[in-house]
């Protein structure tokens, strides 16, 4: 049961979410442009600095748009990627209907195809950002960072052309400050579930994070301020939580993709931490102060390239150490490894990550693989129940 204080903020956020399409429509009437993006390698600070509205199009979890996406992608493609096309084709998601352009970081093969179909068939301008896939936390490949800086500079120029005016460094610095403040507040939210009697559940933290994918950023920051103030005043509940503490990692956990979370919850599990790109990873790591004082593009490149890499990037060591650190810090008993079917990059790493966590922390992992249909609910529930039961017995 979610405690009362943040309930009020979540309600306010949800009200805001229901009003947001109308607000964006008004802004568009006044000349604002809406830029959608999918993967968190796109620095939204540059979009904000252009006076445009960034929207992270992380919607999924529904069968109909995934099926609609099969007009372009095969049924054996990632269902999230199919949704990225399907929502636009169906015309039922207001955010997709309001797009003026999309920006796509060239990450996995599925997302590359999504950008190509948008460009050729959907009449939407596409800004592509070349991504180095081979880079390491040890910075042994400085050329990757140099290249990425130049790609971001090119993006800035092209977006400026689209906006009809150059994007000033001062505007980027201001948007870095705003985005950093948001990230700081979100990180605080994700800190709470470390404690057994947290006044906020991880699941609320991720809902709040995902609300920020579409909400106007200044308003969103105000709401986050309110929420953190309320949480600070809230004493620990003192109620003993008997649920099994779990961490979730794996494929994109899209806005609207509740199936696995519901099943884990119903099976007696309590997800308290994550390593997913739509959760705490989105808020991890600020742009350094050098971005505010010095060249903002250099600082953005540093932040976005060296955040925790998606497994379509080759830096496995950094991914392993980060996942292990979270599992340790949050004192979890098990890992839910969520794999969207046909998400090859995450799927291939499962045996490696599972063995690593087992060897280093004695924390077992459960692979739950799914598409956006209800046909596998029974099987997943059985697996989740058995896993959580096993963890209770440990």
């Amino acid at each position, binding site marked *: 049961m979610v405690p009362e204080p943040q309930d009020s903020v979540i309600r306010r956020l949800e009200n805001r979410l229901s009003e947001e399409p109308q607000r964006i429509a008004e802004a568009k009437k006044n000349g604002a442009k809406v830029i959608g993006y999918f993967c968190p390698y796109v620095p939204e600070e540059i979009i904000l600095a252009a006076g445009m509205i960034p929207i992270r199009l992380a919607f999924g979890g529904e069968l109909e748009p995934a099926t609609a996406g099969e*007009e*372009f*992608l*095969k049924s*054996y*493609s*990632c269902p999230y990627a199919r949704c990225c096309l399907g929502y636009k084709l169906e015309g039922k998601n207001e955010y997709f209907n309001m797009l003026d352009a999309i920006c796509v970081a*060239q990450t*996995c*093969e*599925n997302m*590359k*195809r999504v*950008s*190509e*179909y948008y*460009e*050729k068939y959907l009449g939407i301008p596409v800004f*592509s950002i*070349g*991504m*180095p*896939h*081979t880079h390491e936390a040890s910075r042994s*490949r400085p*050329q*990757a960072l*140099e*290249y990425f800086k*130049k*790609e971001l500079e*090119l993006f800035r120029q092209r977006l400026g052309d689209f906006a009809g005016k150059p994007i000033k460094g001062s505007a980027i610095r201001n948007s870095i400050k705003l985005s950093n403040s948001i990230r700081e507040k979100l990180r605080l939210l994700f800190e709470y579930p470390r404690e057994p009697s947290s006044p906020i559940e991880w699941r609320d933290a991720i809902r709040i994070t995902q609300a920020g994918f579409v909400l106007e950023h200044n308003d969103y920051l105000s709401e986050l301020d309110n929420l953190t103030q309320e949480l600070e005043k809230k004493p620990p509940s003192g109620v003993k939580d008997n649920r099994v503490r779990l961490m979730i990692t794996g494929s994109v956990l899209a806005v609207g993709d509740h199936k696995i979370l519901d099943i884990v919850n119903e099976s007696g599990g309590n997800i308290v931490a994550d390593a997913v790109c739509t959760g705490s990873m989105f808020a991890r790591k600020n742009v350094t102060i050098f971005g505010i004082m010095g060249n903002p593009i250099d600082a953005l490149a540093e932040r976005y390239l060296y955040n925790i890499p998606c*497994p*379509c990037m*080759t830096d*496995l060591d950094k991914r392993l150490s980060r996942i292990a650190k979270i599992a340790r810090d949050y004192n979890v008993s098990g890992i839910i490894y969520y*794999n969207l*079917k*046909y998400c*090859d*990059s995450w*799927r*291939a*790493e*499962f*045996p*490696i990550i*599972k063995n690593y966590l087992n060897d280093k922390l004695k924390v077992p992992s459960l692979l739950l*693989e799914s598409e956006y249909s209800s046909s596998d609910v029974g099987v997943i529930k059985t697996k989740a129940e058995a896993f959580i039961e096993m963890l209770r017995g440990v």
Partner: protein
Amino acid sequence: MKLESFSGTAGLRFDSDLKSFDKLISFYLNAPQRVAATGKKVIAKGPLSPVDFIYAANAVAYDIATNESMVQSVFNGRTDLRPEAAAAGMSPDFSPWSLAMLGATLTGKALLPVDAYSTASSNLDDQITKSFQVMAQAGSSPLHFWEIPFYNPEAETFALTYLKKELQQLFDWLALYTGNKVTEGDLRRSIHLGNLLRQDMAEINTYLAMPKVPIAALEYYLVQMMMGDYAQDPEGLHTHYRNLIDELRIRAGKEETAPGISSSPVRVYLMGDESQELCIFNSIENYGGVMVGCDFRLPLYYDVIDEAKSPLDSLAQWIWRMPCNMPSAKRVRSELDLISKQRPDAVMISSVVGSRYISGAERMFRDVIKEELGVPVLSIETTFPNENAEKVDYQIQAFLETIG
């Protein structure tokens, strides 16, 4: 060594009169023993990852996905590699190429032991990149990825700078693991040898462009497949290609077509994902077609590497423009001239279930080919050998009969 004698290829039609092809196949199948005898380091690489610098380091390039799959799954008809890959924790939803490679490697059944893994990451194939990570970790083998940056003409200057630095780091890594420094002279010689092979392939393609095609689809496909790693011995492969070209020249001089090709066939260009279903090549001819081109390995021979300039500069520019490195629409447009040269009446696009590479772009390929070349297009989908042979055979029959 004849392919007819393998359990997995029984029932397929081969051109038994083409003697140079039999010798080429023996050369290909004997490669693991030959390589082992040289004592050279074996570097596994992805199917479309270039190889010239591996040979410049006096090592052997091994296209592990193609060779393990083709010899073990396709020729020998082994069906146990897929379940073994799954038992090792891999997804059964991967492509048959990845699963056969993983099954063979993770269970120690690979034809050729690999010393190190290195392939281009980024735009070539996510499954290969991830599989290399898994295999290297399982075998505690050295692993080095190198990046081909996203193809965008606006970014050419800085992307090429990046690519050259990646190549230089790759050369350093090769020196470390092979004990052989990649000198400019070594690279120049290796590029020259690769160019000879690229010219061989271009010459073989001229025979496919003729009104009477002297080489059958199945033989052509297997010849082209060996470009994947220059068959682990570029000089040897060049010799065999020249012998094949000589034999094709004699046939062409007599205006002879390969056995199985009808007198006025429908000219079919095949593109897309490399298929393990070899019967499709026979089916093209069985129903009145002739294969006049195939782009499965085209990115490795689409053009020669400029030998007049610095080898590093030339290599980087050539890699950057490899068709497989381009976004799908650009890729297919970059191939249009090469396809047109072969004068096709129709195009077939092959997708492999489990592969995200071409299958994801199949719709784009189909539409661009129809728009630009105005020829009919058939999309086919295959998986492991013999799993949907009958369906594809019917599709090809219906397509060719409709056009013919």
